[in-house]
């Protein structure tokens, strides 16, 4: 009874709140579990909206401002829902030296989106990565979880075109597996 009054009920009956609550419970609802909890929100929902942030704030008893502060501080947490497909262009030093900026220009010319943006129809999101650690394969891009090595702007556009025509499949990336494991 007491435990129920301390920890708020999830805002909806969406089953995806379960892993979020599980993460908080693993850390005994301690305030320092904030980042770990947001990681779980990110991997299950794909982004952090106000409903999720409010729920996490109440559950961990931290001010909403702090949850928002942390969610906006770290690049890994997205505040907007992602598109059906994602194209991540690596902007690490090796990729930059080998022309990664041209990949972004090509994407902007063809799809009209800059890094961090999604096409109006919600098909494709363009993101950048600080460094994929695949510097030997520069310049590299990741299309729906698959690394494309030594890619040129025309090849990237062809592959993104093909990706955008595929049916939407939710790809469980290794990152998500690792976070939820």
């Amino acid at each position, binding site marked *: 009874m007491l435990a129920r009054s301390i920890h708020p009920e999830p805002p909806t009956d969406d089953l995806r709140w379960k892993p979020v609550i599980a993460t908080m419970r693993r850390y005994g609802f301690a305030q320092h579990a904030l980042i770990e909890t947001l990681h779980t929100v990110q991997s299950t929902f794909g982004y952090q909206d106000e409903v999720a942030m409010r729920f996490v704030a109440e559950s961990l008893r931290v001010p909403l401002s702090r949850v928002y502060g942390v969610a906006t501080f770290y690049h*890994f947490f997205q505040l907007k829902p992602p598109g059906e497909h994602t194209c991540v262009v690596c902007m690490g030093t090796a990729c930059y030296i080998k022309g990664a900026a041209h990949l972004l220009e090509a994407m902007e010319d063809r799809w009209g989106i800059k890094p961090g943006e999604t096409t109006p129809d919600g098909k494709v999101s363009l993101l950048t990565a600080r460094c994929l650690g695949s510097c030997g394969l520069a310049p590299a891009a990741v299309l729906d979880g698959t690394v494309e090595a030594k890619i040129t702007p025309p090849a990237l556009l062809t592959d993104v075109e093909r990706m955008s025509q595929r049916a939407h499949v939710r790809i469980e990336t290794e990152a998500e597996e690792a976070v939820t494991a």
Partner: protein
Amino acid sequence: MTPESLTQVAEKERASSTPHSLQVCTAAGCVSSGADEVLKALKAEAKARGVACQVKGVGCLGMCQAGPLVAAEPSGHLHKFVTPTDAAEMIAHLGEPPTERLALDADQAFFKRQEKIVLENSGSIDAERIEEYVAAGGYKALAEALSDLTPSLVIKRVTASGLRGRGGAGFPTGVKWATVAKAAGPRKFVVCNADEGDPGAFMDRSVLESDPHRVLEGMAIAAFAVGAHEGYLYVRAEYPLAVKRLKLAIKQAERLGVLGRNILETGFDFHVEVRLGAGAFVCGEETALIASIQGGRGNPRPRPPFPAERGLWHSPTLINNVETFANIPTILRKGAEWFASIGTEKSKGTKVFALAGAIRNTGLVEVPMGITLREIVYDIGGGIPGDRTLKAVQTGGPSGGCIPAEFIDQPVDYETLNKLGSIMGSGGMIVIDDSACMVDVARFFMEFCMTESCGKCVPCRAGTVQIHGLLTKIARGEAGLEDLDRLETLSTMVKRSSLCGLGQSAPNPVLSTLRYFRDEYLAHVVDHRCPAGVCKIAAEGEVIR
């Protein structure tokens, strides 16, 4: 598990080896090139033919651009660009030299000129099986430390080895350990900084993916030396494979009794937890990293007090980098004198570099300190591809500088690199050829620091934006000579007055390019042209987006 039963585990593992083995590199680079499919195909083929050949995934074999790589043992033959369709041929001709298409010369300088301590097991053991690490001599150093040494003796050995922090700054590791050991407090922590944020560097990632137990063993030894019983491994969430292997390694080590409660039945406890970073470069700074582990924004705080005295949850905290911890087991096993015999007078041991950019052999290399840049670039790296010439070598990422080609014969050690206006850094080494514009390179790094500035102190928050603005103006050919002076003054000011290492080192790429490549800046400012043809120079009256 006692130290004796550890030996039994090692012997059992060694006895179970097959006459042939094929080792498929399953580190990030090769996985990106399709190593998982190659591993599957080879396993299926070996099983179908019923040959006594163990096929296993191993850590980084080093030469990423030729991946997927497969090493054959005991012959030592290396195969490059392997595809699943090569499996039948490789299994049918075990022990024979590979065909010309697949052959990768294992005797070339890239492999022969390296000296491996941190990477000694990379490419030979399966990172997901603790038995293989134990068979390779793993956890022996921890066993020895716990049963035969005292904490102060361990610190003495680490001090005598001359090991310095591999995160970039090069602080003597033994001194740091002694400070934490001396600090008073009921609770102490050991933290491994695996928030490798420098773009163009992937050494720590590779160590964690290829040999995670080495880092855990180093941390446990450190915990014993300083009197800590809790530890955190702060890893980037962008390294999913490393995170997965680390979590698995911790579980295996706890099950075997070399981590957790009552380690090796000596009564010593040490618990390790993985914490995920969330993509903030500043969290590589130790006080910011502490704030992040505690669940907050990664804002640094002024030092002193240093974390060694007041760190995680106000307790004395030892923070070392992945590569630093990875050196510890070998130092204890082979002796401080042995380690100190490698390298230069003030820089001992080896350093792992992620070699990339305009170079033939990109990948991960471990070289003795004091080796010249020429040996790294031309012997190990195989030189510059095409008919291009070397312009500079960039070390230390956004915190480092560009060393021009004229200093190619200088030795790589902490002092020399500092003198040249760069830093050792964590190990990113980007080779730049004459197709790159140094103003553009400086602008790239400044954009990085500007975005990554946490915003807490004014010099860094406002200064990086202003420096970036000036560099953009110069790149467009819209700047005057007075802007160059302004750039220099501002850079020096940000360097001197920022709160933490991020701001203090952010101007380094600008200052070092101004120092060595001033002519390129002048070409943009005076002649309104970019010598390398990289920057878009504005025509009279034109506005560039």
